[in-house]
């Protein structure tokens, strides 16, 4: 189990990490998500040992790893640009970590083949890394990271450099690979879909601080604040007063904002609320419909059929599904 406690790292007095804490459970896939510049890569590098924290603690199974140099931590890190060794072929890259562990050559050969098989590149050992496609490089990098059986796998935007369709395909594959080898994974990304697809838990980092850490479902349902809600792509954020106008009673306490999930809005000719349709676009499978409430505020929902712009639409809100927070 990895425990990061209140880690602070400053570059030229600007904190990249500002008391960030995170726990990654054994054999779980934990995503760390944040916009660029939020400190997510710094976090990963600190865990790997490539940056020294100015304050805080990083421990594995309760034992601090701060004094342990990078090469003795036993954590694998896969870089966004893969950082494959250009002077070694595929097998040479994958074998590197095993050679550093002074495994005998038979073991290395066996393990290299095994890992290449695992990532779907059997027989690629003799290929030069310069001849590989982007997806193949990504798999080689993954194989290289996994080969020496790291106790923790750190991935820095591992699909960032690939195109969309390949990304979706590899994402699923990676998840199954991690499950097969029971790896403990910390997965850094800025992409919500990636994080939600692969991770058991998703931590959100903002300005060097972890602002949320939950399962994807709970994060989606109960975002801790408006920023997080917007960041993970939730729509229909409404102020308490606007919701009151819609006949929704805010709960007692300090909550000032509510999120109405699009699926909590049902279009129906008998709906109790009315709005003007300001947009209706086909998005493959369903129409995304924007409902204008006046004063520039809109709600978004989905409809199996398209609506005429400027038409008047009626709808209901399932108030139980609204989540509330302080913004």
């Amino acid at each position, binding site marked *: 189990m990895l425990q990061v406690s209140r880690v602070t790292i400053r570059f030229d007095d600007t904190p990249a990490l500002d008391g960030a804490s995170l726990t990654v459970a054994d054999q779980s896939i934990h995503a760390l998500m944040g916009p660029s510049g939020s400190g997510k890569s710094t976090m990963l590098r600190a865990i790997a040992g*490539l940056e020294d924290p100015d304050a805080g603690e990083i421990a594995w199974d309760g034992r601090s790893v701060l004094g342990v140099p990078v090469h003795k931590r036993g954590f694998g*890190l896969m870089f966004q640009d893969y*950082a494959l060794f*250009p002077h070694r072929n595929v097998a040479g890259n994958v074998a*590197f970590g095993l050679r550093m562990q002074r495994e005998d050559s038979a073991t290395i050969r066996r393990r290299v083949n095994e890992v290449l098989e695992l990532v779907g590149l059997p027989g690629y050992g003799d290929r030069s890394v310069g001849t590989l496609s982007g997806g193949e490089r990504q798999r080689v990098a993954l194989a290289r990271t996994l080969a020496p059986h790291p106790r923790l796998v750190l991935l820095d935007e591992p699909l960032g450099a690939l195109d969309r369709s390949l990304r979706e395909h590899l994402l699923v594959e990676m998840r199954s690979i991690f499950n097969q080898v029971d790896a403990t994974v910390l997965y850094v990304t800025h992409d919500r879909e990636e994080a939600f697809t692969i991770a058991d838990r998703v931590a959100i980092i903002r300005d060097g601080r972890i602002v949320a850490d939950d399962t994807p479902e709970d994060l989606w349902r109960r975002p801790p604040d408006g920023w997080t809600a917007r960041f993970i792509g939730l729509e229909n954020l409404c102020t308490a007063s606007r919701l009151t106008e819609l006949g929704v009673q805010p709960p007692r306490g300090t909550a000032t904002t509510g999120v109405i999930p699009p699926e909590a809005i049902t279009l129906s000719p008998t709906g109790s609320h009315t709005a003007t349709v300001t947009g209706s676009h086909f998005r493959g499978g369903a129409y995304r419909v924007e409902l204008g409430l006046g004063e520039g505020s809109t709600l978004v929902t989905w409809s199996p059929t398209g609506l005429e712009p400027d038409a008047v639409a009626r709808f209901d809100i399932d108030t139980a599904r609204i989540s509330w927070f302080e913004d």
Partner: protein
Amino acid sequence: MRTKPWVLLLAVVPALFLAYFFVYPLITILYTGLVPDGRFATSAFVEIVTDPTMRSVAWFTLWQAFLSTVFTVALGLPAAYVFARYRFPGRSLFRSLTLIPFVLPTLVVGVTFLAVLGPGSPFGIDLRGTIWAILIAHVFYNLAIVIRGVGVLWEQIDPHIEDAARSLGAGRWRVFREVTLPLLKPAILSSSALVFLFSFTSFGVILILGDLHHSTLEVEIWRQATAFLRLDLASALAVLQLVGVTAILLVYGKASKRTAGELPLRPSFEVARRPRTAGERAFIAATLGMLGLIVITPIGVLIVRSLNTPSGLSLTHYVNLFNPPRSSAIFVSPVDAIGNSLRFAIPAVVIAAGIGLMAGVVIVSAKGRSGRIFDTMLMLPLGTSAVTIGFGFLVALDQPVDLRASAMLIPIAHALVAIPFVIRSTVPVMESVQRRLREAAAVLGASPRQAWREVDFPLVSRALAVGALFAFAISIGEFGATSFIARPSSSTIPVAIFRLLGRPGTFGEAMAMAVILMVITGIAAMGIESMRGTRSGGV
């Protein structure tokens, strides 16, 4: 980030080497010259300022260096472009040929140029006693610096940037002026600084092609020290030259730092292609024609002369070298001369490569100014007058062990001049070995030492081999700098040429020996050419 302690430790060897074999002798000789009887000889400086001859020498030194640089860059840019962007038959042969002048002995080239530019010139001109002869020779010598220095960067600039500019409506010339040129500027600036440096400190070329009115500080230092025995004036001039050289190197350091900056480069991508249009082919042909005129004509003249005998073209001069028609000591067997040259070249290469590599690691690892200062210091010997270094060795290196008459001084002097070339070849590659690769090795369990051995060294070794070949070529061809060291008599190739040139009747043999030297350095140049992928550094 702070400089790590191991970097400081690694810096000790090159620093000590430089301190003991350069700074200490330099300071000692300047002190001897300028403080002859315990009092500072201000009069020497006054003389430099007031004497019209000295003033004109100083002015001419600057002026010809400036013009040499302008012409070399003007002619080098199209050549750099052609080599960087086009594939054509004989490309690498041509590029190797441009490297040969850089390592030819000035003595021979000077006399050859006399034939090309002097009386009976095939071009019907007589440029003796004009600045033009000097400029042409300097272009001949320094073209390789621009072709390589700029070419290396040019072949790494993503051609798509230029395509993008063209698609935005810029014509070819505007693309060059507004996109390519600004991107190349650091490389042009740093190459220019090097060309300026070599022209500023030119000795052999000026000695052969110059005259009373066309002389440089370097020649004047030599003249004052050896013909007039005026060590005070020579030292004062050496100080003046050193100030100039330091200024040039500071410009160079600034410029080459920018080369390493963030440029939209695609390092492992072959951007060269076959010429497509007739215009492109004509441009390539014109550029190669220009190179042929400047670089290959003198080389060709040299070869033809070595084969020219009263009875027509024959190998007589070569045969004479191997089987002297008479037994006389002035005929140094080429086998012996080559053997002696190698005996000096091997330790020179070992020292230059070892110290250059250590210095390179330090320069890359040391953060901020200290690395740059170190780099500049190591380049100073390139611009220090040979007679100053030679005399410096002689007055300074008698303690703690008397090295003054040691044969090792020759490879050490060669190494001093060659180290900057090793650094120039390796540092860009070391800088381009991304920190990520080293980090990747570390997270895979490699200790810093293992990471260096497994990642840096294999990637840098090719560049180091290039640097070592440069060092080899420099050592094999060097005559000027080492001639001022009292050296044990074992005739190296340039010494043998010098001897043969010093007698009436052995001119043909001198040319034949020069061709042999050219072939050896040519092989080294080919080696450099084949070793440098697109990733290795420039000059």
